[in-house]
């Protein structure tokens, strides 16, 4: 039998916006790069996202948001991740996120923020290089 890890990624859509083109493009790109990508679908609460990450034992979470509610929802997600002990999961974000919010998001543990127009190759490379190496 073969053994081997695959990078498991959760692509999640917190909040109320109902536009997931970007999330799906990123999901597809990561899949085509050989990762296993779980997609939550739209309008997820922080609780649902963190619980999904826990049950699926993902290495990486990509949060996509366009509604402008990131400063309310992201801190809650990071807090719940910590509460559940999921501190080694790599979290990145994408969507419409103003430049001036990024330092604050990085402070709470969002490792990278990708704005509109980011080439998917850049995200793939980032995930490969930064996904936690687990035993």
């Amino acid at each position, binding site marked *: *039998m073969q053994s081997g890890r695959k990078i498991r990624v959760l692509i999640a859509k917190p909040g109320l916006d109902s536009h997931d083109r970007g999330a799906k493009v990123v999901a597809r790109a990561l899949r085509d790069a050989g990762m296993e990508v779980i997609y939550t679908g739209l309008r997820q609460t922080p609780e649902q996202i963190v619980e999904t990450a826990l049950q699926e034992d993902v290495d990486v979470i990509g949060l996509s948001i366009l509604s402008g509610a990131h400063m309310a929802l992201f801190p809650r997600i990071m807090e719940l991740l910590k509460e559940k002990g999921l501190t080694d999961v790599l979290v990145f974000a994408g969507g419409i996120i103003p430049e001036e919010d990024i330092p604050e998001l990085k402070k709470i543990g969002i490792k990278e923020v990708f704005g509109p127009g980011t080439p998917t190759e850049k995200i793939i490379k980032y995930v490969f290089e930064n996904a936690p190496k687990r035993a």
Partner: protein
Amino acid sequence: MSRVEELVKGVLAGEKRSIAKAITIVENNQEEAQRLIALIYPHTGKAHVIGLTGPGGAGKSTLIEKMIKEYRRRGKTVGVVAVDPTSPFTGGAFLGDRIRMQELSTDEGVFIRSMATRNNPGGIAKATKDAVKILDAAGKDVIIVETVGAGQSEVEIVKVAQTIIVMHAPGLGDEIQAIKAGLMEIADIFVVNKADRENSDKAVMDIQAMLQLDEREKAWNPPIVKTVALTGEGVPQLLEKIEEHRQFLQKELLHKKSWEKAEAELIEAIRDKVTSSIIEKLKRERRFEKVLQQIVNREIDPATAAEKLLNQELE
């Protein structure tokens, strides 16, 4: 306590994090996988395992969501393993079955895990049966395994589940073609979903006609249940049929089925172990590459080469 022992303790206590980590270990076939299963095996065999298969678009994930809700209403805890295909070209996978079940992800009595086939044939992943054992040991009353959108050969599920539901829906093309050969024979219960569509009666009749052609003497006649997964219509009736089948099994066949399952698993485990140990030995002794070269040079064909190597090994 070792890492595995600690995980097993968590699994037996029903802790979600431990269950998730344990499934990852068997999925990656990590070194500890065998020890982990050995430790939990005595605690398995309590859950009722349901397999759900059928063509893509029939509504499997949506039906499972409604089944979970109905089981929860009846006070049962539920585990789900939802399998989606791995791309044979990139090795990646898009696991989207959960989308329909997300509302239930925060329910304490529910554990849902998505799994890629990792190119295992037959509609489930190699680790699916071990994931089921982990959920069983964790105390889930009911475990539902969703296969990949099936064609005609996704029959591996019989090795994992006790009750097999074959699902169909009108309007997916040639009605019965898709569930003909293999799938037809493994069904314990048929579900015709999207029963609110006008041609759903035709789908039911097609299945009935197909069943009548089967002249083998049977102790269990697979019922056909009509559902509308979107609204949950027909789901309580489906659960009744599942329960009837479970009781039938307990009376008649549970022993035989578990015997058959044990046999299939033992054969598979022996095959895996023998294969990998022989190949490792051949590689170590550099005989593997030598024969490989001969095959590439067309001096010998692979089957004859394998026979020769094995004969040398077994002498």
